[in-house]
């Protein structure tokens, strides 16, 4: 057992393993880049860089490969065991040790971003306000309960819970204090809704004169509108079927036990601890061109009864309560002079937001120490008389 453990440790800490892992990372980067010729960025990111294992097709031949998440995980272990714990300690290796600590911090930052960050956007016309932002890619089923005034009580079911339910088999959802359960089935990553007609056929059962038509998934994931078949099941067995679709303008409203509920399929939504109101959006075009040179948003940040004005522009984001709001884009793209424009602010909540910067500083310090020492020694050697 002891020998086995030592053998495993030797492999995990070996320079050979480092080289293999780095080459695999380079390969995955190259393959992922090529894949973007016919697959959108979101899908490529998910397949090559956020997975543990993937199947890459060379023509019609499937080739299993480790995903970047697995490779980076092994690289982290290799770095800790071989590059830090088992490394010879001394003045000569001090700079290298610090560099390795910085790289390990960078990998940890990547894991935190992958697992614990939220990102999306908030899009506003001038005068509009919002206290939520929504994901570009992920969906959720939201159950809203109407409370006093405009307040709602909201429970959500993330996409991961029902994305596999693409056929008749349902995922059953319950919630705290729900007087019913939900059955979700026939999930489609991209779909249209159409009135049921003689020429309209679908594998999804029609509901109330409407059918859901699964459509080909668009390469650009932001253009996909998901669809889902839902059933509200009461304790006495009564069932109410309905269709949920990503482009609906309002939830499906129903009442149970004197309570008013709404059910909808929507882009994953996050509540911000403040409200952002777009006061003014400015766009400057390049001279004699219809291409934007710069654009910025003057917003009012409203929280706890107070308001402060902030300008958000390229490289000048708004940072508040762990959120970062960047000026991402504007539209509509076919706006004519004088048409009202909207501003899209990208929103990121990343606990490791500053970690890459800190890691790069640590790496730079380590490399300066290591190569600086080498340089000094070289100069001294050169200065000695022959």
């Amino acid at each position, binding site marked *: 057992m002891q020998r086995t453990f030592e053998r495993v440790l030797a492999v995990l800490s070996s320079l050979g393993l480092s080289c293999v892992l780095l080459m695999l990372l380079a390969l995955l980067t190259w393959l992922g880049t090529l894949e973007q010729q016919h697959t959108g960025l979101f899908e490529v990111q998910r397949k090559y860089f956020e997975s543990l294992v993937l199947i890459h097709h060379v023509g019609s031949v499937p080739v299993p490969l480790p995903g970047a998440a697995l490779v980076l995980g092994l690289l982290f272990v290799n770095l800790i065991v071989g590059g830090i714990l088992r490394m010879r300690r001394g003045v000569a290796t001090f700079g290298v040790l610090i560099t390795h600590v910085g790289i390990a911090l960078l990998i940890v930052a990547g894991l935190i971003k992958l697992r614990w960050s939220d990102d999306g956007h908030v899009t506003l016309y001038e005068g509009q306000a919002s206290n939520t932002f929504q994901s570009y890619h992920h969906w959720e089923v939201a159950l809203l309960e109407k409370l006093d005034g405009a*307040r709602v009580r909201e429970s959500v079911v993330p996409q991961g819970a029902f994305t596999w339910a693409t056929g008749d088999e349902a995922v059953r959802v*319950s919630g705290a204090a729900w007087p019913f359960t939900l059955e979700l089935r026939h999930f489609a990553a991209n779909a249209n809704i*159409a*009135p049921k007609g003689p020429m309209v056929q679908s594998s999804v059962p029609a509901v*109330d004169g*409407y059918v859901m038509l699964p459509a080909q998934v668009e390469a650009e994931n932001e253009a996909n509108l998901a669809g889902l078949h839902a059933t509200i099941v009461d304790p006495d067995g009564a069932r109410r079927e309905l269709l949920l679709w990503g*482009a*609906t303008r309002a*939830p499906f409203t129903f009442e149970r036990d004197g309570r008013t509920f709404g059910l909808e399929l929507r882009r994953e939504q996050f509540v911000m601890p403040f409200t952002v109101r777009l006061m003014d959006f400015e766009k400057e075009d390049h001279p004699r061109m219809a291409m934007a040179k710069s654009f910025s948003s003057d917003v009012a940040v409203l929280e706890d009864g107070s308001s402060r004005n902030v300008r958000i522009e390229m490289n000048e984001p708004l940072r508040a309560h762990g959120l970062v709001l960047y000026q991402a884009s504007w539209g509509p793209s076919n706006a004519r002079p004088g048409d009202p424009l909207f501003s899209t602010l990208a929103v990121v909540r990343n606990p490791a937001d500053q970690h890459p910067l800190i890691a790069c500083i640590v790496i730079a310090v380590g490399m300066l120490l290591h190569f600086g020492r080498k340089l000094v020694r070289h100069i001294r050697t050169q200065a000695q008389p022959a």
Partner: protein
Amino acid sequence: MQIRVKCSARAALVVGAMLAAACSGQGPREVVAAPAVEYEPVGKPVQWNASDAQRFGVSAKDFAPAGASAHGAATAPYEYELPAGWLALPPAQFRELNLRVAGADNAECYVTTLGGGGGGLAPNVNRWCGQLKREPLSQAQIDALPTVTWLGQPAVLLDIEGEWGGMSGDASAKDWRLIGLLQVSGDKLRTLKMTGPRELLGRELENFHKLVASFRAKS
């Protein structure tokens, strides 16, 4: 040695089962929703008690745009030049491009793309024949129909006259003409269909062909 082999086999079974589960794509069949949160949405008040037509932005009577049309408009892959005197209307259900011919209320021209083959070329040709109360065409007659180039690919041209029975057979107008293109592209059936009074369509035939020639894929 025997114990090590047993352990290895057991470990292999566990790993294999995990991999199989991971690869099966299935998830838990019973889930509990995330704990509820209470808040007041700002900027997007919830529209309670919306009808299905309001939710989807399209009614069973096929007149409301938005919803599916927003989706269709976002993915309509072409540009065109509007003929003089024609009007561009908002896209509608099954009409990713929706035009009024020469400003006439009863003449229209629209593009529809149906997935899954749309039922095939012949059934759609004969569906159009039925709308003008014409006898269905045989396969040989359909094969003999002329073709024009539309969006770089051949499209079958159908030009027929008759009594307009409407799409559901519940309307009626004599001396009607239908000029349309049907194009099978991959698993899609794309059509450009112009209907209206025979005389009006006769005058606008040249504009129709100019419209067809002006179609191009969006860059």
